[in-house]
């Protein structure tokens, strides 16, 4: 139980205790926060301009001058991977945010009102979900044309049914909760019950899902860019960078693709570790 004198820093002490109990999840947080900080501080850390080409130092293996080596135009891979954090995190978070808002709105409306509204909305979601996600994103990105906003829209759209289903099923459960009934008993309107009582209680699983989804969204963004449907050169996006270096792996110049690939792997792992542990963190009863 939290005593009154401890209430100023209950978050911090609880967080420290929680980290000790959940080292794996804490590690995930550490990765993502660390990458985020690196991305924000990229202009300070990066030794070179990520867009600078240096034909004299093409395809140099990793060395103290170029930590991750250089690419086919002599660009510094390390600097580009650092700036890539901004691009890829931006696309991932953007896609998840849009998907989350659109999807959970659909789910909340369907779950709370039920009946025919529910039926129509959820069948629409089924249609979207029936297409393989990546293929659908390819089609949308292809139609809209390659650019960062279009990439975000394509990935977000594919994820809408995920959030819609999740928030709907959560709403179906908590709609029947005793505290929702009790709120009606003291005279709360539908709108108030929906926003003040139910929404805060439905966020936990949706948050968990969106964290997991963040990793996949970044993977999808890189994938689309890799096949040329996403971001264009010379933007320092990890998928584009892998695409550039892919033909060179056979020639032994592995570092061009390897380091952006490693960045993607670490990012996806970080988000997944957080997502797995977040469920407990967001349960108020544990604090």
């Amino acid at each position, binding site marked *: *139980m*939290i005593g*009154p004198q401890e*209430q100023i820093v209950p978050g911090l002490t609880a967080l420290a205790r929680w980290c000790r109990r959940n080292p794996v999840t804490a590690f995930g947080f550490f990765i993502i926060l660390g990458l985020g900080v690196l991305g924000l501080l990229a202009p300070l850390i990066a030794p070179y301009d990520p867009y600078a080409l240096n034909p004299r130092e093409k395809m140099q293996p990793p060395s103290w001058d170029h930590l991750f080596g250089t690419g086919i135009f002599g660009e510094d891979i390390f600097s580009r991977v650092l700036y890539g954090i901004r691009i890829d995190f931006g696309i991932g978070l953007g896609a998840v945010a849009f998907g989350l808002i659109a999807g959970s709105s659909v789910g909340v409306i369907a779950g709370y009102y039920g009946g025919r509204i529910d039926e129509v909305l959820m069948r629409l979601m089924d249609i979207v979900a029936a297409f393989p996600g990546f293929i659908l994103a390819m089609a949308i990105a292809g139609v809209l044309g390659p650019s960062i906003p279009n990439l975000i829209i394509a990935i977000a759209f594919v994820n809408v049914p995920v959030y819609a289903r999740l928030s709907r099923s959560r709403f179906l459960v908590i709609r029947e*909760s*005793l*505290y929702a*009934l*009790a*709120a*009606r*008993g*003291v*005279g*709360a*309107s539908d709108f*108030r019950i929906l926003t*003040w*009582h139910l929404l*805060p*209680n439905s966020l936990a699983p949706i948050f968990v899902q969106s964290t997991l989804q963040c990793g996949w969204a970044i993977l999808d963004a890189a994938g689309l860019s890799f096949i040329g449907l996403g971001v264009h050169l010379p933007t320092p996006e990890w998928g584009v960078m892998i695409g550039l270096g892919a033909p060179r792996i056979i020639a032994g110049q592995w570092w061009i693709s390897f380091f952006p690939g490693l960045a993607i792997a670490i990012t996806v792992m970080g988000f997944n570790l957080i997502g797995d542990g977040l469920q407990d963190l967001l349960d*108020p*009863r544990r604090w």
Partner: protein
Amino acid sequence: MSPLLEVSGLYKHYPIRSGLLRYRNLVAADNVSLTLQAGETLALVGESGSGKSTVGRCILRLEEPTAGSVLLDGKDISELSEPEVRALRPQMQMVYQEPLESLNPRHKVGNLVAEPLLLHRIVGKAEIPARVSELFHMVGLGKEHIDRYAHTLSGGQQQRVGIARALATRPKLLILDEPTSALDVSVEAQILNLLQDLQQQMQLAYLFISHDLAVVSMLADRVAVMYLGQIVESGPTASVLASHYHPYTQALVLATPINHPRQRKQRIVLEGEPISPIEPPQTCRLVPRCPYAQSICSEQPANLVEVTPHRATRCIRFANEHQAGRWTP
């Protein structure tokens, strides 16, 4: 004096799918009528499945009754629209069996108690904190509890929050749905005493829903015993507990655990279990379990009959034979 609450012919059916396109009705409340005067306590007693909680919720329009009328202060609230009912909520409130589940886990209990004040503009925004502290004080909680979340409080404290929230709008009618059955023995006593004190202070009318005759005998002026959706016996509490006019009441009294091992004796209580609540017969529903059942019991419809002043029973044998002084259960 016209009663504060007058319920007549209340029915609640739940359709249950019994085939591809066939529905049958689960009868949760079957022609329930009751009245409650201001400041009085009426207990609805019964076991699980008797429909006592359903009746409570239908009165508050937390569930829609299938048929019947509910008069609060002479005004029929069963026909009102949802916003009209909402405007009447300050007058009638409910305290729930599971205090923790009835309190939103994501809001501080102080905010939950403030919610009805805010919704019905009982006091100005600036006065809300003072009124919340006052309510907390009334139910025996301190200021330090206001900023806590429900799960950090003990069961008894949670139920005090539930009571404070129900009292916030100064209601005339409080429906208490087994308010102490989830609590520890020592805490139950505290809450029962609190409810008694509050009733005297605020002239509250209680509809007290319970399965525990001991608790009922302490709190209630009158009692209505329910079995499978129907009231089977009603009357003043002391009188009903002293002489039962229905075999089911007798069984409830006999099954209530004894107070002292010296009272141990073999008692014949009902055998078996209740019949299905799906479209039950209009004849006596206790017949398969009743030690006194005769053929007449499954031939005639069992109606609630007032046999002596203020005392009603649904037992056919009692109604027929008591006047002649021939039989009591």
